[in-house]
């Protein structure tokens, strides 16, 4: 029997069998689509996902630049004191909310060159304890600890995260709106407000659908 005739046929059959193992017929885009960051005004090919580090950097950079340009900061007589108020998360993504304000604070402190000062209100408990220790003479003080020297806020900086979500067989889309505002502590006026928006979309592998 001359098997040499099947030299090509057998390997071809085997290869076809092996390759067919990777096939998934009848399923559209079985490998899924990787998440792609897009401009908010760009029409997406499907829909997106959550809040990530690149969003944080983009949003906080934009907000820091924007705050520095407003007259209340740029032309302020004296140095405005700002207190950070927690960001409200109205999106569908659980996040560490403080990270936004922490980065804006960091950016402003670096770029403002002393034009704004932040007050450490989140450390008030420790500050008050220290002041009491000084007042009671349990620790030394470089100045008279009795006068009230904790500064009051000129502005409150806060923000809000909101999202819209869509899901179809073609994928998932998430639009997140980041709004930040600077509120005059004396008048309650919103002296500055800015927004950033990001839309993302993605599709998971067919094995998870």
């Amino acid at each position, binding site marked *: *029997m*001359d*098997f*040499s*005739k*099947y*030299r090509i*046929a*057998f*390997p071809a*059959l*085997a290869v076809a*069998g*092996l390759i*067919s*193992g*990777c*096939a*998934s*017929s*009848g*399923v559209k885009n*079985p*490998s*899924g*689509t*990787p*998440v792609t960051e897009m401009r908010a005004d760009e029409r997406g090919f499907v829909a997106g*996902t*959550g809040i990530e580090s690149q969003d944080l950097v983009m949003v906080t950079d934009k907000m820091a630049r924007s705050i520095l340009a407003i007259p209340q900061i740029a032309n302020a007589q004296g140095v405005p004191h700002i207190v950070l108020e927690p960001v*409200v*998360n*109205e*999106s*569908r*993504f*659980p*996040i560490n*909310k403080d990270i936004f304000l922490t980065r804006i604070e960091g950016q402003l402190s670096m770029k403002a060159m002393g034009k704004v000062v932040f007050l450490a209100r989140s450390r008030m408990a420790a500050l008050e304890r220290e002041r009491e220790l000084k007042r009671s003479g349990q620790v030394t003080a470089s100045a008279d600890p009795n006068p009230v020297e904790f500064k009051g806020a000129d502005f409150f900086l806060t923000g809000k995260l909101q999202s819209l*979500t869509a*899901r179809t*067989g073609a994928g*998932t889309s998430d639009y997140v709106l980041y709004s930040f505002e600077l509120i005059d502590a004396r008048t309650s006026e919103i002296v500055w407000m800015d927004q950033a928006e990001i839309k993302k979309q*993605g*599709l*998971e*592998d*067919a*094995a*998870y*659908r």
Partner: protein
Amino acid sequence: MPPIARPRDLKPLKEGMKDFSRFVLAAVGVMLAGCATQPGRQVVLTGNLMIDGPMEIAYGPPRDKVLWEYRTAAAAMCQARFDLAKQYLDDGLTRLQGIFGPDANARKARGYFHAEAKKTFIGEPYERSMAYIYRGILYWMDGEPDNARACFRSAEFEDSDTENHEYAGDWVLPDYLDGLATTKLGGDGSDAFKRAQADAKGLTLPPYNPKANVLFFLEFGPGPTKFATGQYQEKLCFYSPPSPVRSARINIEALQVPVAPTDDVGFQATTRGGRVMDHILGNKVVFKNATDIAGDVAILGGAGTLLAGGGRNATMNEVGGGLLAAGIVSKIISSATIPAADTRAWNDLPHYLSFACLALAPGPHVATIEFLDPAGYVLPQLTKSVTFEVPADGKDKVIFISDQSSTPQKS
């Protein structure tokens, strides 16, 4: 005198046999290599999730990591080890949120020669929703109702891709809690309340009380399990065992608060409908059957042809041998095809979820939670006691109690 076969005449036959042998050896080698697994550290299960879970997470197959994180988180919740539950849920949810795009394990799971269970486990939608619900409870416990609300919204989102849209995003509790969190944060939770009420079949949900400062999350009964049916175990099915507990009652001082179930996890498991993966598994079955039948036909045809040739007709022998070999290869391919559905399941989920919120004075309190059978009788062996302190700063006190919880608890 009949011609005598000389050694030179047998050369093509010998070479052919040699080639065929090489091919068979190579094919067997490839297949064995495909079946090979690297020896990993074997985890010996003790039956105690708080021991097995961390071991499996550390040393088990990476594809099962999220499964064990889910299971261990639920077990940790029952033992009031909420920090541990948070850690596991955060890791599992991070994996879940990053599942977009190509995934090598998922690609293998779609292939004919690997089982669906080869893919990284992230759970079916009801399991993903439950992970978000638990994480939401833990966020609320930490005084972050907005992040809790985000989790409840994601829980509904995970349930939104149902085949039959009648059952899309129809969890009651996540919507109700979304509205409650919004109300407590000074917003308007009425839309979420309406959605929750629309899905709460036969149950009238209590209106939001922004002054309620103690939130009880209760769960009871055994949750759904998965099993496979079909010719090759390719059909994923769910079984929700009947729950011996049908309701609960919270006793605090003179207060007695009846608590009816708001969500049936078994119902959520079974109303998702077909998956895209079910079509892939269906294709695998078709392929397995087709190659099996083709193999049978080729083997029978080949054997028949060889018999008809009787060893005297060289052409028939060659054709018969070829068919026989092709049939064997086809049978091997068929038997190597694995259409079995993935039945890995988060097996310590509850059957029912429920909730109650109360306005209590700041200070210490003791609550007794009784679980009742379908006839309304207390199941005393399941009764739990929890001591807790309502904070004076206006923050909510969140209590999580399962019929499997340890007791007494101090929260």
